[in-house]
Structures are given as C-alpha cells and as structure tokens.
C-alpha cells in the first residue's frame, strides 16, 4: 500500500507521537509549529502556533486534551489539543529537550539543555490546572543533572522517570524521593530515543552508537541488542507482534555529501527476540528522526530530516509473516 505523505513542515521533523487511540498523529519540527493530523487519511487538523524556535519535543496526554511542546526558544508550552490555544508557557533558562506526560496525565516532566552556563535540569510540574497560572507556578521537583545531559525520557506510571543521557547512560529516578534509584551504561553514545512497550514492562533505546537495545523497565537489565551500521535515532516496539522498528541513518551533517543509498535511511524491522533483521522500508531521503507504531499495530509512522512524515499501513503479508 502506498504510504501517506504528510507535508506540512518546512524543516526537519524532530518528533512524532500518536495519541492513545491512534486517530491523531502529532508532529514537531524545527520550524516552530507542531502539527496534528488525522491518521486515517493524512489530513492536517491544525497547527499549534506560538513558539519562536525549533520544537524539540512534544507529548499528548492519554485523554487527548492536553498537548505540551518544548522548544529551543527556552519555553515549554501547554496547549489545548482541540482548539490549538496556548494555555500556559513556562520559561526556562535554556532549550527544552524532552517533555512527557505522566501515566495519569496529571504531571508532566521536562528537561533542559546544558547550555549558556546552565546545567541540565529535570523538572516535574503539576498540570491539573489548565490555565495560565502555571506560568509562574513552582515545579514539584527540580533536579539538576550534574554528569550528563538528558536526551530522552519516559514515565513509568506516575512514580518513576527513566532518563537516557548524552553519554549513553540510562537511569531511573524516583520522583517522590527525588533521587536516582538505578542506572546502567550499556550504550557508548547519545541515547536519542526511548519508547515503552505496550505493557510498560520493557523499553527500547535508540543510540548514536549504531545500536538499539531492549531493557527491562524495572531492573534496567539489557535483554536484547539490535545492530546496524548507522546511528539509530529512534526505535519502537510493535504493540501486537514481537517486532521492533529502527530508524536513523547517516548523521544529518554528512547527508549532503552522500547519496540516499549510502545514507541508509531505511526503516529497519527486527525480530524482538531473535535480533534478526527481516525487513526494510525505503522512503525517506534523509535520516529518520522519529518513529512510532500506531497503537493498533497495523501501521507505523516515521518523521525524517527531509521534513516529511510518512504513515505506512502494513500489507497483509506483514501480518502473515511467521517466524518459526
């Protein structure tokens, strides 16, 4: 089946996210306007206008009412999904790199870059009150990250946060105690992305060290490893099969000097348990920056450095594929 090409961004995609039901797809890019699309036909529902700089991260809560975005303009903005109105804007001292809603959607976490003399910091805020009073409200928790900057983040229910760091470190923080509980260093380079499995028992990391790894979400034991020849920017676990999809490719700065073929901008499908690659999907002509499975597992979307978001519905043969 032909993929849906979502053209709406003027610059490279930074992150894409489905809402819980999978009827909406949110995308952010360096062009400062996050978009929301209908996944069924690829029609654009609207944009969230207000940021002044590249939008690095986005998230939507489970009820699909609240939407947050963090940007290089040193702000975290909270939006109403339905109206596209900016409800609150929290200023920070440096760019906002990651932002996530907790399981309940009552809290949100965001992290800032280490830049302009500022340390990387992790903030947790209460987002139950949906109004501009948030702008000046004190965060529930403020944790400075001394050693390495946070480059990706996950909530586990409402109590713990899993962070992926610039130096390849993965840590778990207890938000109530406000301290690190556990950490492992399995990767040798930046962890670009982390995504939980549907049942939240494991998560997959994507790293610039050309691998993606599967971790136990509780003990942080590395269970599996998926190897490629290029930096991996994003990885996702299928909600219905034992499949993992990896996206990445040549580093963005080298793209202009290499052809599409050499860049290896394919989405690559691996078997979750056997670690064997079984399929590749071409399409992007730049590295893939973000990937996500539709919650029903029947399609997936990818956003690339080339500025396109592609939604690919799987063929019947994908569902018939049997690994003995």
């Amino acid at each position, binding site marked *: 089946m032909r993929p849906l090409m979502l053209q709406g961004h003027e610059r490279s995609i930074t992150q894409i996210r489905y809402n*819980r*039901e*999978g*009827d909406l797809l949110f995308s952010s890019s360096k062009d400062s306007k996050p978009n929301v699309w*209908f996944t*069924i*036909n690829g029609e654009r529902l609207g944009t969230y206008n207000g940021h002044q700089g590249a939008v690095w991260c986005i998230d939507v809560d*489970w009820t699909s009412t609240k939407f947050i975005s963090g940007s290089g303009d040193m702000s975290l903005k909270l939006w109403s999904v339905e109206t596209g109105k900016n409800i609150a804007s929290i200023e920070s001292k440096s760019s906002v790199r990651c932002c996530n809603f907790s*399981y*309940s*959607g*009552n809290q949100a976490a965001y992290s800032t870059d280490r830049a302009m003399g500022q340390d990387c910091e992790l903030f947790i805020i209460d987002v139950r009150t949906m109004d501009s009073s948030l702008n000046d409200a004190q965060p529930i928790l403020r944790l400075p990250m001394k050693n390495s900057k946070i480059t990706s983040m996950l909530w586990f*229910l*409402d109590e713990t946060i899993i962070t992926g760091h610039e130096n390849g470190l993965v840590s778990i923080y207890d938000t109530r105690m406000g301290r690190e509980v556990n950490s492992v260093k399995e990767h040798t380079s930046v962890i670009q992305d982390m995504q939980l499995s549907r*049942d*939240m*028992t*494991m998560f997959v990391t994507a790293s610039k060290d050309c691998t993606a790894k599967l971790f*136990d979400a*509780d003990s942080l034991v590395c*269970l599996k490893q998926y190897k490629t*020849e290029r930096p991996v920017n994003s990885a996702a676990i299928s909600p219905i099969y034992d499949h993992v999809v990896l996206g990445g490719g040549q580093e963005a700065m080298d793209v202009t000097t290499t052809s599409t*073929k*050499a860049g290896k901008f394919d989405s690559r499908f691996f078997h979750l*348990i*056997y670690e064997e690659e079984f399929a590749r999907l071409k399409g992007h002509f730049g590295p893939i920056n973000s990937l996500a499975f539709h*919650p*029903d597992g029947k399609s997936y979307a990818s956003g690339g450095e080339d500025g396109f978001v592609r939604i690919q519905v799987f063929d019947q043969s994908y569902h018939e594929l049997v*690994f*003995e």
Partner: protein
Amino acid sequence: MARKRNEEYIGESDDGEFEEEPVESFEDPEGFVDTISDEDLLSDLLKKKPCETDGMENVIVVDEIPKVEPARQEKLENVIKKLFSTCGEIANVFYPKDENGYTKGYCFIEYKSPSQAEEAVKVYSNYRLDKTHTLLVNVFTDFQKYENIPVEWTPPTPQPYKPTVDLYSFLTEPDAYDQYCVVVDNGTSPSQVQFWENSLPDPTELHRKDKFTEQTVKWSPLGTYIVAYHKQGVAIWGGPQFQRINKFPHPGTTHVDFSPKENFIVTYGSAGAGGGSKVIIWDIRTGLEKRSFVADPHAPTSLFRWSHDDKYVASMGDGAIHIYETETFYLLEKKSVKIPGIRGFAWSPTDNIIAYWVAEQTDVPAKVTLMEIPKKREIRTKNLFNVADCKLHWQKSGDYLGVKVDRFSKSKKGGQKDQDVKFLGMFYNFEIFHMREKDIPVDSVEIKEPIGAFSWEPVGDKFAIIHGEGAGGCNVSFYEAKKGQKVSLVKKMERKSATHLFWSPRGGFIVLANCTQGVFEFVDTQDFTIMNTGDHHGAFQCEWDPTGRYVATGLSLYKAKDDHSYYIWSFQGRLLRRVNLKNFLQLFWRPRPPTLLSEAQQKEIKKNLKKYYPQFEAKDRLRQTRASKELLEKRAKLREEFMEWRQKRVQDYENLRLKRLELRNRIDTDTLEADKDNLEEEIVECLVKEETTLI
C-alpha cells in the same frame, strides 16, 4: 663426566685392605684417559684467545679471468682493479704468468681486511665479465680448507625423515568448497588475515592469523602458497594449518610475482643502502636466490614475465627483450633479442610464443610480431599505421591474441614541417590473431568510440568491449571469433553504466560492473539475458571464485571510511551472504590448479550430469534442513528464555492493574477496546478525488 669417574675411583679404594684416611685426591688416577678436550670445556674461552692472523684471510683468488698477452695486461689489470676496488682498498695484486708472459687466467688480490675480501667474494662470485668469462672468486684460505678434504669418500649418514606439510590438502576437500582469505586492518599493523572456506550453507572460518602481513597478501597461481609481506622480505605459507613454508629476505619488497608453475618467485624491492631497486628471482622450494638484477634508480623497474612452462623469463630493456633460461638463468643463447623501438611484449599463456609491438618510426610502420621461443623465429608480423598505442591481450587459453590499437585518424600534415601534424581525433582497432589456425590469420574490428575496457572470455571464443561515453551511458559489445570466419558482433547492449568487465573463469557468464557506484549486472552470454542486477553500494572490488560458481564484491577501507563489507553472490547474481566487517581491506579467492581429468573424461562427466544432479541436490537439501534445524533450535532457546522472563513481568503488569485504573479515573485503557463506554464510533469519509463538471 670427569667428576663421576673420580668418584668411582674413590669407591674402589674403599674396598681395599688399607684403612686409609680418605683424603680427597684431585690427582688423575693411574691409567685415566682424559676424554674431554679443551675444546669441549673451554670452547667459548678459546675462541677469544688472541692469535696471529697470517693475513691470508685478506687474500682472494679470482679465477676465470681472460688469458692475455703482456701487451694487453695493463688494460686487464685496470678492469679488474676498477671492479674489485669497489669492495675496499686493494693492498696488493699478483698475476701469475706462464713462460710466454701470458697471464694464467687467475690472479690474487689482497685487501686490507678479511671483511672486504668476504664482501668481494659475495659481490663478484659468478660475475659475468663478458660473454665468455664468468668470474669465480674465493677467499684464499678456502683452498686450505678444501685441500684437507679426505680422499676417501664416506657416505653421509641418512637423515631421519622429516614429514613435510601437505601443501595440497585444500584440494582434497570432499565437497570441493573453495577457500578465500580476507585481509583486515584492525588498527594494529601488520594486518590480520582470515582464511575461510565457502562451505554451505554458511562459510566456515578455517584459520585466523593476527599480524600476518604488512600490506596485502597474494596467492600463488595454483593456490599452493600465500605470500605475506614483511619489512625484511616476504614469506610463503601453506598447508592445512597455514604454516610458514619458506622466507625470502629482501627488504622493502613491494611486489611479488610467481612463475606460472610455482617454481620461482620474483621479489621487487629496494637494493639496500645505496637506494634504487632490485629484483630477485628465488627458487621456491630451496629458498635460494637464483639471480638478481639491480635496476637503475631513475628508470622504472621492468617487469619479468614468465613463459607458461616456467622455462623462460623475459624482461624488456631499451630496444631489446632479455630472455633468460631458467635452468641457468643466463640469457638464451647468451644474447638479448635486439628489437629497436620495442614498446611492449607478452607471453602466450599456453605456448612459448612472445608477442611484442614496435612503435612507428620515420617511414617504418608500427608492427606487432609473434616470435617463437627458443628458436627466436618470427612466425607472424602485422604492420599497422598511425598508431598511438597498443595493448596486447592474450586470451587465457592462448587461442587468440587481441591487440587493441589506438590510432589517430588522417594526420594531415599542415605546412611544410613534419611537426605540424593535425590530429583529427582517435579511433580504435582490435586486431585479432587466430593462433590455432594455419598461418595465423588476422582479423580487424574497428570502433570509433573510446574504449572503456576489453576482456576475453577465458574459455571460449568471445570477447567483450565497453565503448562509448556520454550522458546515456556506454555500450557493451560482444564479439565472437569463430574458426575460419571473421570476427562478428553478436550482441550490443546499449545504455549501460559498466566500467569494468569480469568474465567467469569458466567462460559463459560475465559481470558488468560499475565500480564507482557498486552496481553489478550478471549476464549469461549464451543468450545475453541479464540474470540479475545486484547492488553493493560503493563496492569496487569484484572477484570470481576459481570454479566460476561465486562472485565476491567488496567495499574496503581503501575507498570508504565506513560501511566496509563484502558480499558473496551466486553466478546468477543472487546475494548469498552479506558480511559487514570494519576495516575490511581485500578478499582473495584461493586459486586452483587446472583439472587433471582429460578432455574425454570431462565430456563423460558433462554427459552424465543428469545422473549426478539428484545426488548433489539431495546433499544440499540435507545440509539446508540441518542448518535450518540448528537455527530453529537456537531460536526456540531464545524464545524460551525470553518468555520465561516475560511471564514474570506480565504478572507484575497485571498486579499493577488497580493502580493504573486509579491513575486514569477508573477507565480501563489497557487495550484499545477495553472501555466500551468510552468508545465512540465515527465514520470518516475520505475525499479521494475532486472533480468539477461544467454544465
């Protein structure tokens, strides 16, 4: 020994009648014979013992110099002096003379030190003074040594048999799997070399040698040995464990060449401290130097080319070909073949025929000549006009010789002077010599476009040419040379992107390779179907295995900074194996010697192929199922382990269900359809196409 004997003696005296106080005696007992010489006990000290040198070590005897009359003696002395003073200052020279005053054909030269004398022996032994005189040089003291040789001959004691390495074990592999070696530069110089066997369904690694070679490796033409380069020289390895068989010390060796029958090895390296380059020909089995040539440091080293049977080796000089007989390594018939204006030559791969070409000189056309060796008889000459350059291409089976002739069309002489030659572009000719026919007829194929590549089918009558250039790509043409007929075009494939041609060593199949992009087209030349097109991005190496069953393509550190890999394809172009290997350098298939079966036997096998086919098929299938069984077992194990862990974690997940419900206002979101009340069905109509119709 001595001590022991003393003790025995003391023991004996105790048995005597006298009760003597046992006094330790250091005297030798009566009748004691000292069996140990000073040499055994103090050899190291004796060596250092100062002794007079009688000066005899400084003297050398030069034999086989010309016998000359007194009038010419001075000239001879000058020549000898000039030669031998290169090894050191000469203290004294003496020429014995007969009663007529003629020199006796030898002389004595005294140097200042024994080392200079030794050097002179080393340098000038077997030095060829002229056609009839080859010097024999010895140190004078050697004569004493040889005088002492006993008259009676005692047979040498038989040496115990040392089992040698089985150099041909690789040929006894029952499934005829081919071997290949992979050179990897894993950061530490020298490079690592891996030896693989291309077994089914997966290749097996036979051996791995770290720090094996300085730059690259090379198989000998029959696959018996593999050469590794080192700073001090080269070494050859072989046998089932890849042991070192021999080494050839030649510092700075950059290039190595084997004779076709693997009797000799040629090393091209540096000539030592003085600079310049040197070529040494060695005997592979004994490891001895057969002959060496010091080349002019400014001129490019001429390559030595071997005749197919190792009988001759030839190199090109200025206006001559030097042909050496390998029995003695002297020039054939003691003289070079003078060919003024010679520009290139090549041996036939199957006969002792040399093809060479001579450039155009004023009023004399260029020509290509075939010369029979050792008779040095010209068996065919072809004159050519307006020649810019020639390339000689022998077909592997020696049936044909193709000469690619670059010619300039119609050089118009503008003005009076000859220098004002106007070139009106180039065109290209292929002169095809039919070697197996009477009088060697020559055909000619003319092509107007530039030639990218030319290649003979190794076994068969076809050759392929890449020609033309431009936006649309180039053309690949196949010509066939049939017996008694003119060469004819059989197929022209247009708009190709190929840059190189790789024929299967068994003929029939060819790979059209684009070595800049890494695109490989596999063509069956029976009906010229493109069986498959393979893509190995950036790959520029392409190697057929010696049996023509597989092709390896490689992308190495030499060209790209990452993605180093090699692929193995079937001859139909099916990708069999993809190996990503960081810092991969090269892959070389191990060659095989030609088959020992006669043509009749080969025909017989071909005829009965249908009979063998099911056997091999069954074997392959068995292997495949075994392999897939192994894979399945491995997967089953992985799955089991994973599931064990997973079950535990799913239990944890179930246990947290209440908490999850609590966090999300008692709405079950565990699955998409879990919460029926909250589900809202929506029918979406997609606008597929918009059309406006004007009424």
